[in-house]
């Protein structure tokens, strides 16, 4: 039990460290996409840059504007970090005994709860920009949650379980992506929209809403909101790999490939950010309600037939 507890704590800490270095990867990556060098002055090749950033962000001024509701305003970022770190209990790796049983149900619960922290962060700031940004962010999150859970269900139907490690072991001989390729693409786009990332970052469209729901935050509040966002991005890329490219982690070749693929998928989030201009809000809503949802439902019907008649 001590070992399980320790492995849980270590996976939380490793998630935080991964978040820190993911921000460095993003800055470096965006730098090289724009033919310039990223941060390279701090320490050796700019490697300790995330630590310097953390110290800077934590020691910034903590502004408490007069109109806010102070207590929920301070709680909301921490609630968001709590929820997105809680997701790492489902992280299925070689060392950690992950939460078995109904792990993907837990994922759905937690990811739908994290809408409340965004809503609270916007509402309790008591500012017009923050409120507009949070309304947009909430609408976007809840719409994409529908398609996300239906796509998740397609993988669950194919493997007949809602336990993440069972799903991964099920894909020992063939990956689900070969059956479910279009679902993979839709899942990735839904993940990008769910985490409010770059082509779909309407929550913080700089030109119209200065920074969205986190505009009144400074110092530790902003840093924690930022960490929560990046932690959920990293977990989403873990989930992409383990749902569509699963396998037995005890096989050493696959064990390495798993982490390489996670790195690649999380780099894909940055690549998308560097490559595409911002989408339009009504088109985003049409994309989910008029294009993804009907096609996902149809493919789901097809998959149910497939599983039942071919008995795979």
């Amino acid at each position, binding site marked *: 039990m001590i070992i399980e507890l320790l492995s849980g704590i270590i996976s939380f800490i490793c998630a935080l460290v991964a978040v820190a270095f993911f921000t460095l990867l993003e800055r470096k990556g965006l730098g090289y996409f724009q033919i310039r060098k990223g941060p390279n002055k701090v320490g050796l090749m700019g490697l300790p840059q995330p630590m310097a950033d953390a110290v800077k962000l934590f020691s910034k001024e903590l502004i408490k504007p*007069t109109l806010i509701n102070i207590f929920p305003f301070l709680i909301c970022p921490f609630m968001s970090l709590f929820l997105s770190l809680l997701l790492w209990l489902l992280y299925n790796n070689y060392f950690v005994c992950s939460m078995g049983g109904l792990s993907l149900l837990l994922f759905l619960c937690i990811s739908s709860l994290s809408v409340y922290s965004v809503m609270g962060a916007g509402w309790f700031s008591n500012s017009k920009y923050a409120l507009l940004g949070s309304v947009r962010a909430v609408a976007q999150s809840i719409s994409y949650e529908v398609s996300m859970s239906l796509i998740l269900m397609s993988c669950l139907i194919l493997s007949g379980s809602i336990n993440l490690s069972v799903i991964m072991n099920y894909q020992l001989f063939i990956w689900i992506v070969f059956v479910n390729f279009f679902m993979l693409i839709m899942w990735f786009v839904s993940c990008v929209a769910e985490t409010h990332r770059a082509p779909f970052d309407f929550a913080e469209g700089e030109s119209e809403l200065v920074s969205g729901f986190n505009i009144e935050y400074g110092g530790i509040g902003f840093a924690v909101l930022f960490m929560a966002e990046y932690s959920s991005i990293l977990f989403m890329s873990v989930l992409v790999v383990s749902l569509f490219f699963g396998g037995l982690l005890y096989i050493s070749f696959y064990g390495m490939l798993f982490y390489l693929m996670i790195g690649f998928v999380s780099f894909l989030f940055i690549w998308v950010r560097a490559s595409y201009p911002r989408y339009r809000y009504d088109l985003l809503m049409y994309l989910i309600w008029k294009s993804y949802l009907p096609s996902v439902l149809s493919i789901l019907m097809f998959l149910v037939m497939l599983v039942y008649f071919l008995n795979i």
Partner: protein
Amino acid sequence: MLMTMFYLIVLFMVNLLLFMLGLVIYKRSYKDREKNSPFECGFDPSICTRSPFSMRFFLLAVIFLIFDVEIIMLMPLTMNIMNSNTHWPLTSSMIFLIILLMGLFHEWNQGSLNWMK
């Protein structure tokens, strides 16, 4: 269950620690009336900030509610469809999904999915 409680407590402690850290080391500064007012581009922010929002968002939330309930009802299907000898999981899920799809097309036809008129 006990393990989950432990994890929750540990996570809570991590968050508390970060919060304390932030409260201890942030930069002290003077307070100012203009500085502490909500961020708006030069306007006087005395008007009500929690303004009413567009009806579209509310309609969207209502449609989302229906689909979320439907996802909960579809969830047991994932484990039943493989392990069953009867045709009932297949038939019922097909009827359910077809009703859903028809409902979605009906919403579309009635125009409640349109973002702009």
